[in-house]
């Protein structure tokens, strides 16, 4: 009986969160046109979410690519088709690994920064002070950060993929001696515009989802140190789960 009650309570809470997030998204989107009138604020947030995430994105991209090179070469050479490393790595990075790993890293770096920043503004009455100055915090604080994340994510995805391909090339071509010409030509032949489009769409959707989760969790954080901490944790967990669910749905749609 208790288990059933807890399950129902969890379901009710889940639905309430979905509803709250949807309404919040509506409020944010409603303020986007006015936020766009002040591009300086958005550029600042693209810098915060994007440029400040570059080091972690590039480092991880390089090592993900390198591991992909190692595993790919090991697998393909069993079938004597190590020349197909370019195809395998290119498709894996562009269609899946690039957008998904970038989103997970984005949630961990930029998402947590957004959630904790907005949550702390709530806890220290800065958002209330803005409201008292007749300034809508959704327009002044949330919308620019949301847009900054949405713009930065596809750019970070592209950079991750480019660095990842470089990592595969270093391991496959430079270390294991895969023929460079066949590596690049097979990659060019097999990675089509639709694959790149799929990667870009995923990057945009994940960027929207992760940015929304971060600003929502920050904005609705309980105004205490513990509340902000919980909001930050929830941002990472929810973003990661949501990214993987959305990835499955988008892949199924675009196959």
């Amino acid at each position, binding site marked *: 009986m208790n288990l059933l009650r807890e399950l129902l309570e969890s379901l009710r809470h889940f639905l309430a969160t979905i509803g709250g997030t949807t309404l919040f998204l509506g409020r944010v989107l409603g303020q986007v046109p006015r936020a766009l009138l002040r591009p300086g604020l958005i550029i600042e947030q693209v810098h915060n979410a994007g440029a400040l995430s570059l080091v972690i994105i590039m480092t991880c991209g390089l090592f993900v690519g390198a591991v992909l090179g190692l595993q790919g070469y090991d697998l393909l050479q069993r079938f004597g088709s190590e020349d197909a490393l370019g195809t395998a790595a290119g498709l894996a990075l562009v269609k899946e690994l690039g957008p998904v790993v970038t989103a997970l890293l984005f949630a961990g770096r930029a998402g947590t920064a957004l959630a904790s920043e907005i949550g702390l*503004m709530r806890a*220290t*009455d*800065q958002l*209330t*002070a803005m409201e008292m*100055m*007749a*300034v809508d915090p959704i327009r002044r604080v949330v919308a620019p950060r949301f847009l900054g994340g949405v713009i930065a994510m596809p750019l970070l995805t592209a950079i991750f993929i480019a660095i990842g391909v470089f990592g595969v090339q270093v391991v496959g071509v430079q270390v294991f001696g895969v023929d460079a010409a066949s590596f690049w030509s097979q990659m060019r032949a097999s990675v089509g515009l639709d694959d790149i489009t799929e990667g870009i769409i995923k990057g945009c959707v994940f960027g929207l989802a992760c940015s929304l989760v971060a600003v929502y969790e920050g904005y609705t954080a309980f105004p205490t140190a513990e509340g902000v901490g919980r909001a930050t944790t929830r941002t990472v967990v929810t973003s990661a789960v949501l990214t993987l669910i959305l990835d499955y749905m988008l892949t199924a749609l675009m196959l």
Partner: protein
Amino acid sequence: MAQSAQTQPEVSQTPASDNLVEIRDVHYSVGTRPIFSGLSMTIPRGRITAVMGPSGTGKTTLLRLMTGQIKPDRGQILFDGLDVATLSRSDLFALRLRMGMLFQNGALLTDMDVFENVAFPLREHTNLPHSLIRNIVLTKLQAVGLRGAAQLMPAELSGGMARRVALARAMATDPEILIYDEPFTGLDPISMGMIVRLVRQMNYALGITSIVVSHDVEELAILADTSYIIAGGKVAAAGTFVELKDHGSEIVNQFMHGLADGPVPFHYPAPDYYEQLLADRS
């Protein structure tokens, strides 16, 4: 007619009176706990009104009600004839342009320096040229004695300085009313004296209305023209400081003279002390 006007949820049509704010029979609860049960008071124009009361009586809640951050369960809060609770968000924001509020912790925007904090409402609500904004900000900072701290970040300010910057920001748009939430808490005597002087100067030099919410009886005695003491969800006493000092009510007497014993208990409700100590802890 008067009764029907009170039942109207829309904007009241009452002409401008001597009172800028009127609170009429306000009821407000948090969960099942009543905070106000029939609170009524008036805030006269151009005067300094103190709202006092023991901790936890809802002084800050009252400010939140007055500024439309929360809505009363019942009753009316009229700001210059406008029923705050019934205003749309845009009308509420328009009304807040006429208010300035000093938060207990200053609530400065931590990603901006002192200058930008004071300039913030001007940049958001006006299209004034940069040179004019600069002059206004420097004037306001000069008034609170912090022109030299314009380039400091909020983290570099002491508590008293942060509150003075917040005061400069609150008056940046020249509001009709300044609301101070516990302006003296945690300040050293020098900073406290400065804040008291500033509140008086703002009030008399600019002719604005001031509401000071605090429980610092000594400072409010110097400052306030009229005082209210809230207790038990209602106004326990109102009048000048001298009138309150000689008030017959037990609770007012306890508060004004800082007595430990009285209607406000020292102990939070709890089971019997000895029974709890001797109880089987297993």
